């Protein structure tokens, strides 16, 4: 029997190793797995490479991991979003490496990994500092830069509902990076607001099929 539900946040983040690359979904304060990342702080993994759109906000989630020195490097498109003091402090102290990636390229590199492709040629970034050191190639008269897949050891995501197969639906713009990150890691862990019975989600409207999901944990529900 397939049952991807786990009973606690501690169980959800169990086994994440030091040095792991973690994909952290969300865009600004929306759709991010703050409770899972807080649990990861408890769990203790360090020397992490965090992939996210923003490098943490406020004092919890990714920001807390950074503030506590658990993150070695951030790969993101826009580090300073809402209340980025944890990132700024670590960055200015020289304790945090930053790899800046255009937002769509960030997403596409994860999809590339998810899709089992070796690399792709993108027109984005050509002729800019962010393409320095990368192979460029002219195809049909246009210049492209070679981009490599970006795979996570673990993806941390947040969804609205899940069933025991790990099928997910999101809500409004909280979907954002969640589906692509859920596909792009060896271990995909999802916090959800609600568990539903198998068959309760409309098969035409499942946003992330359970094949991509390893663990789901319920967060913030009424007891």
């Amino acid at each position: 029997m397939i049952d991807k539900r786990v009973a606690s946040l501690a169980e959800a983040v169990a086994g994440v190793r030091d040095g792991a690359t973690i994909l952290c979904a969300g865009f600004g304060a929306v759709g991010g797995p703050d409770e899972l990342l807080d649990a990861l702080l408890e769990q203790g993994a360090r020397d992490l490479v965090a992939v996210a759109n923003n490098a943490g906000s406020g004092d919890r989630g990714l920001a807390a991991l950074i503030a506590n020195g658990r993150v070695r490097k951030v790969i993101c498109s826009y580090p300073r979003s809402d209340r980025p003091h944890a990132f700024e402090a670590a960055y200015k102290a020289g304790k945090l490496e930053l790899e800046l990636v255009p937002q769509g390229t960030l997403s596409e590199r994860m999809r590339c990994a998810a899709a089992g492709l070796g690399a792709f040629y993108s027109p984005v970034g050509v002729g800019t500092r962010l393409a320095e050191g990368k192979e460029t190639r002219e195809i049909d008269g246009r210049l492209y830069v070679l981009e490599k897949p970006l795979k996570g050891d673990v993806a941390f995501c947040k969804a609205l509902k899940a069933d025991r197969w790990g099928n997910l639906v999101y809500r409004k713009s909280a979907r954002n990076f969640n589906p692509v990150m859920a596909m792009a890691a060896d271990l995909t862990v999802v916090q959800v607001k609600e568990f539903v019975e198998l068959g309760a989600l409309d098969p035409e409207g499942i946003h992330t099929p359970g094949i991509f999901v390893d663990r789901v944990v319920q967060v913030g529900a009424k007891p």
Partner: protein
Amino acid sequence: MKPLSRRQIAWRAAQDIADGSYVNLGIGLPTLVADFIPGDREIVFHSENGVLGLGKAPAPGEADPDLINAGKGAASLLPGGSFFHHNDAFLMIRGGHVDVSLMGAFEVSERGDLANWTTDDPGFPPGVGGAMDLAAGAREVRVLLEHTTKDGQPRLRHRCHYPLTAPHCVKRIYTNLAVIDVTAEGLLVHEMVEGLSLAALQEATEPPLTLANDWRPLSASEV
């Protein structure tokens, strides 16, 4: 001679958005454009965090925390709008499905190079967000900016001094003084504010300007 206000620049750019267009509005000045679309036009606004059909900002107290725009402000959805994931959002951008990208700019070069993502402030870790994707990918890139810097230096340059967002991408430029197209022959002035001479405009502009045969005064609503 009366330069346009920031709201008037946005108003002027709004007049050029054709009925039925798919449009992405950058953060800051371009966001104001949504307020000035003529009432008889139906425009679909795209947001890189996975929304098509953004409507007006919700009334205070009616904001949905799961529905934000790319600037991370509260948003609403029009009937016919849809949600999708980040990867599809950037497929729409990079694949040229978004008709118009309206962006802010620090500088634009005479051949349409765009610099709008970093001023290389050493105390300010850079962010790129979706700027490079939009600049390289949208079918047409139009920029809105003040014609000169606060200390009077031209923002339209032979070559951009700030790091490029994308080379050779800007098609039309809206400033507080003029509406200018980037053409194979250089910068072509279509509209200038009343009372401004081409010589005076040239004074505020680094690359040579040509006045279009059918140029006309730049007039903007009192908005």
